[in-house]
């Protein structure tokens, strides 16, 4: 939600001050900025803090994938070991049986969660897959944030011809079901790539997700900008001789920043989910790279005999998206100017 005052102040919020917030004279409460206030609110939201901690743990686990791979599992994410063996309870077992059945979870350092059909360590691939999913989610979110904000600013501020072009474009993308559009683009681009970017590059799914979600941010930003551009402080800026680009980026953008921040976790969660959908359907991350979506898909064949192949990456995906969503809700609540916050005396 955008704040009412152009300076970004927490107008309309009544706050009872704690003793520590009082000035040295003890008469006037110290000024509390909106960000500081939001942080205080966030600190008191224990559910959000729990999921934030969980998210940090998940992200750290994925970031430490190379360490796990090199020092514990001893194999890389794409290391095929089809004819190799692994010691389980003192006996050597084939990583992939003669009839092609991969070993299940050993619950040991090597092949903790078992192997896939190519004899690759699933635990290693799970962590690397998480890196891939998070990376694509983050890059896609950045693309959406930049493009969505830019499109919203341009269409909302300039209106006229610019809006006439950009708005139908957003409506067009908006009108397609996200997954179908993503699969169509993913299938087409996976083969030929985009210019110098090869079809199996992780940038391709990130770009696709970015493109299909641009209207989800661009449209609300446009609406906010249409409202803001009629405000007095914009007129004042014009009178002072500011150009349109400066007005957009120094006057309007700060006032839509809370909207962007509120949308950020929502879009991040949706981007991670869409990446999983696309990879599950073969239109996202391309082999031999792993993502949680490809791991769920690969594990489906063994859903009856070894359900952990699909369930564990599925659980990682659910926990990550849930954490991002809960943290996002917490941030939104913290930034909500209408929220009643009681600061203890």
């Amino acid at each position, binding site marked *: 939600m955008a704040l009412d005052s152009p300076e970004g102040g927490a107008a309309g919020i009544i706050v009872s001050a704690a003793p520590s917030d009082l000035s040295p004279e003890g008469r006037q409460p110290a000024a509390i900025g909106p960000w500081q206030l939001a942080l205080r609110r966030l600190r008191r939201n224990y559910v959000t803090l729990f999921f934030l901690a969980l998210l940090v743990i998940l992200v750290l686990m994925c970031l430490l994938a190379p360490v796990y791979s090199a020092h514990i599992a001893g194999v890389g994410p*794409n290391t095929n070991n089809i004819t190799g063996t692994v010691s389980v309870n003192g006996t050597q077992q084939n990583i992939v049986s003669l009839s092609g059945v991969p070993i299940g979870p050993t619950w040991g350092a090597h092949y903790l969660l078992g192997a896939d059909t190519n004899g690759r360590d699933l635990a290693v691939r799970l962590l690397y897959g998480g890196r891939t999913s998070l990376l694509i989610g983050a890059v896609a979110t950045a693309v959406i944030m930049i493009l969505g904000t830019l499109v919203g600013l341009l269409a909302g501020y300039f209106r006229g011809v610019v809006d006439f072009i950009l708005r139908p474009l957003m409506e067009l993308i908006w009108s397609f079901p996200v997954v179908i559009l993503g699969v169509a683009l993913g299938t087409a681009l996976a083969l030929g790539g985009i210019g110098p970017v090869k079809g199996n590059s992780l940038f391709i799914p990130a770009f696709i997700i970015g493109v299909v979600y641009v209207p989800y941010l661009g449209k609300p930003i446009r609406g906010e900008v249409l409202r803001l551009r009629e405000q007095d402080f914009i007129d004042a800026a014009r009178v002072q001789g500011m150009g349109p680009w400066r007005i957009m980026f120094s006057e309007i953008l700060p006032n839509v920043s809370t909207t962007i921040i509120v949308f950020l976790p929502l879009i991040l969660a949706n981007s991670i989910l869409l990446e999983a959908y696309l990879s599950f359907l073969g239109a996202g991350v391309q082999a031999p790279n792993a993502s949680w979506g490809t791991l769920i898909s690969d594990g489906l064949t063994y859903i009856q005999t070894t359900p952990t192949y699909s369930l564990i990456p599925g659980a990682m995906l659910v926990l990550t998206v849930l954490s991002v969503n809960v943290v996002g809700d917490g941030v939104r609540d913290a930034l909500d100017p209408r929220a009643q916050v009681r600061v203890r005396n």
Partner: protein
Amino acid sequence: MKRYVRPLGVSLLCGAVVTVAACSSSTTSSGSSPASSSGSSSGSSSSAQAGGTITIDSGTPPLSADQALDFTTQGNELYSVVNTPLLTFQRGVQGVAGAKIIPGLAKALPTVSNGGKTYTFFLRPGLHYSNGTAIKASDETYALERDIKIPWQAASFVSAYIAGGTAYAGGKAKTISGITTDDATGKIVVNLAAPFAPIEDIFALAGTAPVPPSTPMKNQANTGTVGDGPYMWSSITPNQKYTLVQNPKFDVPGIPKGHAATIVYQVNANVTANAEQVLQNQADVFDPGDTIPASLLQQVQTTAKDRYAAIPTNSSYYWWFNVNQKPFNNIYAREAVLAALDDRALSRLDSGFLQPDCHLIPPGIAGGSTGATCPYHNANAAPNMTEAKTLMQKSGMIGQPVTVYGEERTPRRQWLDYYTSVLNSIGFKATEKVVNSSVYFTTIGAPSLKPQTGFGDWVQDFPNPWDFMQLFAGNAGSSLNYGYVNDAHYNTTLNTLFQQQPDQVVSQWTALDQYAVSKGYYAAYGHEEFPKFYSDRLNFTTGVMSTEYQTDLTSLELK
């Protein structure tokens, strides 16, 4: 696993390019040598029940029920019991003996004259199609013309070798001048452009079976065509369901009449579901063109071991190298790959259905070798990584980027993953290019692409080593010879050998295969077994997995 033949356009392209060696199907047909014996006859058991309905579950439909268009393994299973050709591969016999050619509609095997360029057939007298129409010698000419016009996926088999075939295909002649017939005597004379031993095999393919002249000169996908076989088409819902019923007018001696009254071939892309249906006796036959998923295989092997067997086929799976481009224009680089490949690993990725071997000619065909004679390491033993790395050093190709082409379907994508990892392990910078299976061969065969390396496979069209070795002939064209191999010794030897019957030049075929392997023109890695998997309702022992027909429908009978 489904096997399609090379798409039609490819066959046509081959037909245009090839003068001596022509296209055959890509990945079709079947093949098998016996699971336990070669030559076990499929006579009915005393408790067997004639009649009834048998259901086959398949993951892939044929391209068409019309034998003059389709050349897939799936289609061949079906229309080969409808359209009997002049010659035919023996039915009811499992294994190599099932690839024996016997007279079909012809009285006897053809007489060969004119230095191997003229083949003379005589039609059996008094034959009738399933609709009661008498079969005439001139119907054979019409059938072959139809093959070229529709065209058959393997149309080049006809157009490239029969005199006048090319002119007819190009619209420069009204008929195929190399064929003359006499309806009164049933005489059919086929003149070839040059001696070509595999022509007898081609006249045993259902695609060359005569059809009534009233058959439209276009694809009959919804109805199939009329023939003189043990079965005839009842109803067809293309891509979903194909129903055959016994032909009461079938009158060709020496060919089994079949046991089941009705055979229903239903298509469901979910292969796991198909296997489960057969396991639970809700369907009768798991189509051998599909692979039983490894996740289910164990259960099948334990709980249904009395109705499951893996039957070897005459098929070959290989990686090809573009010998004109870096890095595989360097023989050491190719040899390094051959030394590093672990054929046993590739077999496990195929649920163990692959028999490791580095040769192109399968053991079931004249000239076939075994994995023990592979030059870089025994195909059944660990790879020689030391040798591979030494060869890579020698090649100077370490760090070279390589794009590897492969198909997306299982286990081909898993093969691609493995092959790419092997290339990376010996020093290349390899990345994958996964292509949809339905367009894979047309993609890699496009002359403009010139890919560096990738997956290839071939399933026997007929039991002649030429069927496999022509893939790397210099004049085979990019739609078959993906690596653009053009070796003078190889070409000359091939052109000499195909003029003779394979059993007369077995050692020469073996030597040619070994020569190509030693040159690293291809890295073959095995020959596949197909699953023979029936429900409890069927008599498993009398059911036949044929080299040519896969599931021999005439052998299926209810208990």
